């Protein structure tokens, strides 16, 4: 058995195909996607190294240095189970504190559109997961606090609603998991370059703006809450839409449709949050 199976950090493929052009392909950007398994659709195909088997565009995005366990090698059984080890996901957590803070700040400026370029070579899953978890906590606690204040002001009985936690957990984790997955499938269908982990990263960081927005929504003015929800939803949706747009214009005429529906979906999330968490009926 090759050493690559037993040692955690050894991701090199011990193998069959001399991956000569691999190092040259590591810092790959979205628009540079060359090899695809779909019929040509207008994307420039750069076939570098004729001896290399065709690879999906997403593979070069979501796994750095040729470490994908493919069925053609001796670690075929290990390849499937390998996904369940911690080591399989380490490359996605290879960020420092300064990187994460940088990306958080970047998410607050929706009109720059440079987020995906910055994270193309090193998408992380730390940000999305912990932003979601923080959001769940903030949503549950602020929602509870809001109903508490509303009940106390009218001197009514108040009981802790445990469903807030489970509901907001379902919404946030579900949204950040399912929407990028569906988007990934759609983009594959249109042969546009995309990477699953980049999409998770993009969506995760786009939710960061909701944290300060929810903190501000404590103010008991209905119109103020709607304004906050609108502004935060708009900023978040623009962030996702602009960052996505620059990379999928090669998808054909339907790119606008995709971007517009992404935008509306994010806005809808913001409205749903506002309605469920901050509309109090005493």
């Amino acid at each position, binding site marked *: 058995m090759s050493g690559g199976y037993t040692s955690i950090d050894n991701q090199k493929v011990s193998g069959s195909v001399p991956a000569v052009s691999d190092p040259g392909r590591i810092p790959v950007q979205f628009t540079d996607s060359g090899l695809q398994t779909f019929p040509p659709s207008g994307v420039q195909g750069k076939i570098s190294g004729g001896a290399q088997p065709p690879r999906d565009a997403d593979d070069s995005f979501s796994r750095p240095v040729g470490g994908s366990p493919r069925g053609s090698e001796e670690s075929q059984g290990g390849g499937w189970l390998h996904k369940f080890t911690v080591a399989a996901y380490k490359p996605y957590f290879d960020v420092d504190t300064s990187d994460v803070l940088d990306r958080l700040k970047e998410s607050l400026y929706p009109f720059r559109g440079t987020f995906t370029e910055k994270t193309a070579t090193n998408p992380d899953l730390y940000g999305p997961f912990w932003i979601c978890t923080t959001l769940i906590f903030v949503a549950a*606690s602020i929602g509870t606090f809001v109903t508490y204040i509303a009940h106390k002001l009218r001197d009514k009985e108040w009981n802790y609603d445990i469903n807030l936690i489970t509901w907001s957990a379902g919404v946030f984790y579900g949204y950040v998991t399912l929407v990028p997955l569906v988007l990934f499938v759609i983009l594959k269908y249109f042969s546009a370059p995309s990477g699953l982990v980049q999409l998770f990263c993009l969506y995760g960081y786009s939710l960061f703006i909701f944290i300060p927005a929810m903190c501000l929504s404590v103010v008991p003015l209905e119109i103020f809450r709607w304004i906050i929800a609108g502004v935060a939803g708009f900023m978040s949706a623009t962030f996702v839409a602009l960052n996505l747009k620059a990379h999928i214009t090669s998808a054909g005429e339907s790119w606008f449709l995709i971007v517009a529906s992404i935008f509306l979906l994010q806005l809808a999330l913001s409205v749903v949050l506002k309605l469920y968490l901050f509309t109090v009926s005493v």
Partner: protein
Amino acid sequence: MFQSEVFAVAFALLAAGAVILTLNVLLLGGHIIFFQSLSLLGYCLFPLDVGALICMMEGNVILKMIVVSVTLAWSSWAAYPFMSSAVNPSRKALALYPVFLMYVSVGFLIIAID
């Protein structure tokens, strides 16, 4: 009915939280032993237990908040040396923030549940 839901949430939060925190450190490239970390995070919860007992006998929300804040700071201070030495110094905050988040949510549960 209501009590069992609260118990379920508290238990799930602590059990899953300890595992996720440990995995978080491992994924960030830190060096800790899985079960050592689980046991340490459990023991560091003790000050919050004391806080919860005190809050059980109190009724005043303001006092509860003060007690919970003090015990929360104590718990975080107890877990800090272990967690920060387990990872690369440039990723210290990334490993510590989730610990703090978990203890804050436990503290919140203490205050919110009557």
